[in-house]
C-alpha cells in the first residue's frame, strides 16, 4: 500500500499536529455554564482584573454548538445532570471538560439527596480544579494544564502500536484457545471471533 506507514511520526505529520494543537489550545471557547458560586469566580476570571483572554479562552458561548470547553462551575443537582449530559453531547468534537470546584468534582459539602457526587459520573472530565470556590488564578492553572494536555493530542500521527501482531502469533493464540476448550469438562465450545 502506498499510504501505509505514511502517518507515523515524521516531519510532515508532527508539524500538522503541532499547528492543530496550537490552534485548539489557544482558542478554547468555553460554554458559559455557571451553576453556583463557582460561576462568580469564572465570571471574575473573564473580567479585566484577571483576564482569561490572556490564554485565549475569553469567548464564552451561550450555545453548546459553538463551544469546545465545558467549565462545570458549581453544584450539579440530580435534576441538572441530564441537562448537563445533553449539553455535553451537543458540543462539537473535539471537546474538553474542566470540573471547577469541590462541588462538581466530588459533590463538595453537599452529601445530600439531591446533589450529584461528582460530575465525572456523567461526563468525562479532563482537568479537576480544587477550591471552594477556586480563585481565578486556580482556574487559570487548570486551563494551562488543559492546554498542556491538548498539546499532547495526535490528530494526524498514528502512534505505533506497542506490540505488532504477526499472523503466526495469532495462529498460536487460536491453538491455545482450542486446547483450553478441550480440557473444559462442560464441553461447551466458545467460538473465537
Amino acid at each position, binding site marked *: 500500500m502506498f499510504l501505509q506507514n505514511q502517518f507515523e511520526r515524521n516531519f510532515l505529520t508532527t508539524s500538522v499536529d503541532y499547528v492543530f494543537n496550537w490552534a485548539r489550545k489557544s482558542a478554547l471557547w468555553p460554554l458559559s455554564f455557571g451553576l453556583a458560586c463557582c460561576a462568580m469566580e469564572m465570571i471574575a476570571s473573564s473580567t479585566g482584573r484577571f483576564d482569561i483572554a490572556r490564554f485565549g479562552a475569553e469567548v464564552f458561548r451561550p450555545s453548546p454548538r459553538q463551544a469546545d470547553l465545558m467549565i462545570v462551575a458549581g453544584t450539579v443537582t*440530580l*435534576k441538572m445532570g441530564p441537562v448537563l449530559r445533553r449539553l455535553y453531547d451537543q458540543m462539537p468534537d473535539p471537546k474538553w471538560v474542566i470540573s471547577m470546584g469541590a462541588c462538581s468534582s*466530588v*459533590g463538595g459539602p*453537599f*452529601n*445530600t*439527596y*439531591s*446533589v450529584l*457526587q461528582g460530575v465525572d459520573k456523567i461526563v468525562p472530565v479532563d482537568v479537576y480544579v480544587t477550591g471552594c470556590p477556586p480563585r481565578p488564578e486556580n482556574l487559570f492553572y487548570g486551563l494551562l494544564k488543559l492546554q498542556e494536555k491538548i498539546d499532547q493530542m495526535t490528530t494526524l500521527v498514528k502512534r505505533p502500536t506497542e506490540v505488532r501482531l504477526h499472523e503466526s502469533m495469532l495462529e498460536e493464540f487460536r491453538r491455545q484457545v482450542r486446547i483450553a476448550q478441550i480440557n473444559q469438562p462442560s464441553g461447551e465450545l466458545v467460538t473465537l471471533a
Partner: protein
Amino acid sequence: MLPETLQQHEAAAAIDRDLPGAVAGGHDRLGETTLEVDPARILEVCRYAKERLGFNRLSAITCVDWHPSQPRFEVVYHLHAIRGHRRLRLKCRVAENQPLESAIGVWRSADWYEREVFDMFGVEFRNHPNLSRILMPLDWDGHPLRKDYPIHGFKYSYKDE
C-alpha cells in the same frame, strides 16, 4: 377562642368576630401576629383577610414538619398588606394525607408555594389546577423535607470505584 392578648388586635378581632370558631388560638409576640386557624376553614379566613382586611399580598406559604407529634404538619401562610405595611401569619395543623383547600382562588401567587409545599412535604391542596412537583424531578420518590427522610446522600454508596 381568641386569647386575651389578641382581643385588642384589629385584624385578629375582626376575623374572630365575623368568622366565629375559625381561629383556635394565636399570639402576638415581638411585633408579629400569629393566628392558629382551623384547617377546614383556611380558605374562608384567607378570603376574608384579603377582601375585608386588605391583606392583598401573599408573602409565602411554607410548612413545618413536627414529626413525630400529631397532627404532623403545620402549614404557615404569611400575609402582607401593602397599604399600611401590616403583616399577619396564619398557621394550621394538618395530619398526613389530610388535604387543605388551595388558596389559589384568593391569591394567584399561591400556585407555586403550594406546589413547593406539596413537593417537599407531601401536603395536598384540594382544587389546585396543577399540583405537581416543582423543585424535584417529576419521577422523584418521597418528600425530602420530611423529618423522616434520610439526611445523608449517596456519596459513600458508590461501588464502582
